[in-house]
């Protein structure tokens, strides 16, 4: 398609997006909707295949009814002669109306699927088979097609290339244009060894420098592929909620089938025989065809809305589960805060000077590949510190969650460490060193500012504290307030100390926080909440978040996070916005509300259809007095009811696709409101509709 170029998905500006009201954050995919309706019309006829119709019990019954009335059109006396004039014409009309009822239901599903396919095609166009430079183990560069890449392959990408597949950066630093998947044209920095910026997605373009990437996804399993599969709805299975509703609808249909099947026996006994065509009309009018026809469209449209908010969900179940979320657990670094903690200041203690501290800090961070470490090196260099030992003979000690320290073993045997203040205190004590009170003072000072303090020591001598500054993402406070109004409790989990955590928690506006949390703590909190029968959602981005993301009922991984986090989660947020959950919760609730509203409407409609058709059938037995709508004739009554039944389906397609508007009211208020609008409205609307159609029919002279 000509319009589906990658540029169609970019925003025109290069300034970062402002966190404005919800609709302005909504990335409407620029999809090609030309020919959508024509294709949908063709699809609706293709879907008349019985093997496809069988999947929808309500519509299948209508479909069978259409065939039977078609037979009675050919021979009205097929099932025995019944009174009535113009039977060929009347039966023929009923057949046509029933046929269109089925077609309209198929049309609703086809339109929803069509929109999803258009989105999928727009995404597909951004993916192209590119040639990749694969690095073989002996260092040679092979040019292969991106479809030949497998998990574990190493490729090199240089400025201007399109990244061939999803992967993890292991070497190099570059800026990448991710507009193909996020719609943001502001480039993103990618570098190895971090939780935040080490993963890249196939289809994005590298703008400068070069990267070595280890491929983490086989062809067809990458991110964009999963997004395409999701919006296309190709492998769509019914969600638990849809299955439950289908069971309900099948049950109602069965009840009405039994009732209508018994009716002729009673009617014949009373000397008021009813034609089969009329009986089938009664059956079709009574069974919940409105919701039966629109159910799948609602579900498909819901998943497309999720994709429009730049979230890749791997299952409809997760989206529906979101609707009931009680608690949201958030990581601090990288989720609530920007996560690129940078060294801001060196605070010396214990009689040392800033320069001494800078020297030791540099020594401890020389092997540190994390952004924090690099920023410490940068700050130390700016203060004039230089490496005064032979790096090749020194050993770097990596950070572990257990020791909470990292550092260097110098060639002369001296051990330099930096890390969490209490971990360093323990290290110093074990080396027989003394601790001074100005260490605690500096620690508190940094924590009060909301920063992360890293203590630095050489053997038993504490040199000082490095102040790592972290910034809370803008606009988060308002979003957490919104969550509170929706009844979602927010808990922030962080490995930082209590004071830092409480400052950030207060600034961000979360309900509760847990400081000094280990990865096991995250699991424990989630399990504790789940034990109280709460639905828990978790947002995270690091590899250490992966088990927790898998344990939570709904796991949302940031796109800027690691591959492990994305694999463990149910959903990935391409905008890396921890409060994106609000939008997904809204969509989840909307799905359930829309289904409920249309089911209520569908069943409420039945009341007026009773008053239309029953008096029409049983006039001979005196039930003609029930004709409160004063419909022209029995035949016109039946036809009007059926025409209304058929037309209401396409009339409600826009509502099904858009979803009932979510209002931030309490559950009781929402229920009351919807019962009035769809319940009472559902009772009254058909009376008016059927009467109008009846007037038109008798005016035209159809019956």
């Amino acid at each position, binding site marked *: 398609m000509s319009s589906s170029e990658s540029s169609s998905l970019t925003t025109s500006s290069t300034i970062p997006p402002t966190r404005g009201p919800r609709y302005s954050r909504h990335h409407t995919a620029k999809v090609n909707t030309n020919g959508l309706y024509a294709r949908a019309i063709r699809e609706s006829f293709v879907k008349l295949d019985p093997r496809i119709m069988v999947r929808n019990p309500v519509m299948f019954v209508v479909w069978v009814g259409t065939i039977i009335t078609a037979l009675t059109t050919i021979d009205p006396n097929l*099932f025995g002669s019944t009174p009535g004039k113009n039977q060929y014409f009347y039966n023929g009309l009923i057949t046509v109306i029933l046929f269109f009822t089925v077609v309209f239901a198929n049309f609703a599903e086809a339109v929803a699927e069509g929109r999803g396919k258009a989105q999928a095609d727009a995404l597909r166009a951004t993916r192209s088979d590119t040639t990749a430079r694969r690095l073989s183990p002996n260092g040679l560069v092979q040019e292969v097609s991106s479809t030949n890449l497998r998990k574990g392959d190493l490729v090199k990408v240089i400025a201007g290339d399109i990244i061939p597949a999803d992967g993890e950066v292991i070497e190099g630093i570059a800026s990448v244009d991710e507009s193909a998947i996020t719609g943001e044209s502001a480039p993103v920095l990618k570098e190895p060894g971090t939780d935040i910026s080490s993963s890249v997605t196939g289809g994005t373009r590298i703008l400068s420098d070069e990267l070595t990437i280890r491929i983490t996804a086989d062809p067809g399993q990458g991110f964009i592929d999963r997004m395409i599969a999701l919006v296309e709805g190709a492998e769509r299975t019914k969600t638990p909620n849809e*299955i439950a509703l289908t069971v309900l609808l099948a049950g109602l249909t069965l009840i009405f*089938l*039994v009732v209508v099947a018994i009716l002729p026996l009673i009617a014949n006994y009373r000397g008021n025989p009813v034609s089969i065509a009329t009986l089938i009309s009664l059956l079709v009018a009574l069974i919940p065809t409105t919701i039966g026809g629109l159910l799948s469209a609602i579900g498909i449209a819901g998943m497309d809305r999720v994709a429009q908010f730049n979230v890749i969900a791997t299952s409809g179940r997760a989206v529906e589960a979101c609707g009931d979320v009680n608690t949201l657990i958030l990581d601090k670094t990288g989720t609530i805060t920007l996560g690129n903690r940078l060294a801001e200041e060196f605070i010396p203690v214990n009689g040392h000077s800033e320069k001494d501290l800078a020297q030791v800090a540099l020594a401890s961070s020389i092997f540190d590949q994390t952004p924090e470490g690099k920023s410490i090196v940068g700050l130390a260099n700016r203060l004039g510190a230089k490496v005064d030992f032979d790096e090749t003979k020194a050993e770097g000690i990596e950070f572990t969650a257990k020791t909470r320290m990292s550092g260097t073993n110098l060639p002369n045997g001296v051990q330099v460490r930096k890390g969490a203040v209490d971990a360093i205190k323990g290290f110093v004590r074990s080396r027989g060193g003394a601790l001074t009170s100005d260490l605690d003072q500096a620690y508190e000072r940094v924590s009060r500012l909301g920063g992360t303090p890293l203590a630095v020591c050489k053997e038993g001598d504490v040199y000082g504290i490095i102040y790592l500054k972290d910034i809370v993402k803008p606009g988060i406070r308002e979003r957490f307030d919104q969550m509170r109004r929706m009844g979602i409790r927010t808990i922030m989990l962080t490995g930082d100390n209590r004071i830092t955590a409480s400052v950030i928690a207060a600034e961000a506006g979360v309900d509760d926080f847990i400081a000094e949390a280990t990865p096991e703590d995250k699991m424990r909190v989630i399990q504790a909440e789940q034990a109280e029968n709460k639905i828990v959602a978790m947002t995270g981005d690091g590899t250490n978040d992966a088990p927790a993301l898998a344990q939570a009922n709904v796991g949302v991984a940031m796109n800027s996070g690691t591959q492990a986090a994305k694999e463990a989660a149910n959903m990935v947020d391409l905008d890396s916005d921890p409060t994106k959950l609000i939008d997904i919760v809204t969509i989840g609730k909307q799905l359930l509300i829309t289904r409920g509203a249309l089911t209520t409407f569908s069943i409420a409609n039945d009341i007026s259809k009773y008053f239309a058709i029953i008096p029409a059938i049983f006039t001979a037995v005196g039930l003609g007095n029930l004709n409160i709508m004063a419909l022209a004739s029995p035949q016109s009554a039946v036809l009007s009811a059926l025409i209304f039944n058929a037309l209401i389906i396409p009339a409600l397609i826009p509502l099904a696709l858009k979803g009932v508007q979510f209002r931030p009211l309490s559950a009781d208020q929402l229920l009351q409101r919807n019962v009035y609008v769809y319940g009472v409205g559902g009772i009254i609307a058909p009376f008016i509709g059927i009467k109008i159609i009846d007037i038109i029919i008798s005016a035209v002279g159809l019956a």
Partner: protein
Amino acid sequence: MKNLKLVNEIQTLLADLTPELQSHGLLRSLPLKLFLALLLNLIIAPTVLAATGGSISRLNAYAIGLLGLVTVGLAIYLMMVMLQPQRF
């Protein structure tokens, strides 16, 4: 009389064939099920004819028999949807 004997013969034939058909897995396929339904109708239709005392024509009897079978079929289908919704 003759009709009754025919009916009995068909019944015994079906009873003998069913285990064989099942063992060949043929009983699963839809066309065969439809064919069997039509055969079943052959049995039911004369019953309908007898019940109404001959006031309706032969064709009507067959049609009503078939309609009855379709209705029962639909009812069974709906029960299956209620009990095993994942299959659909």
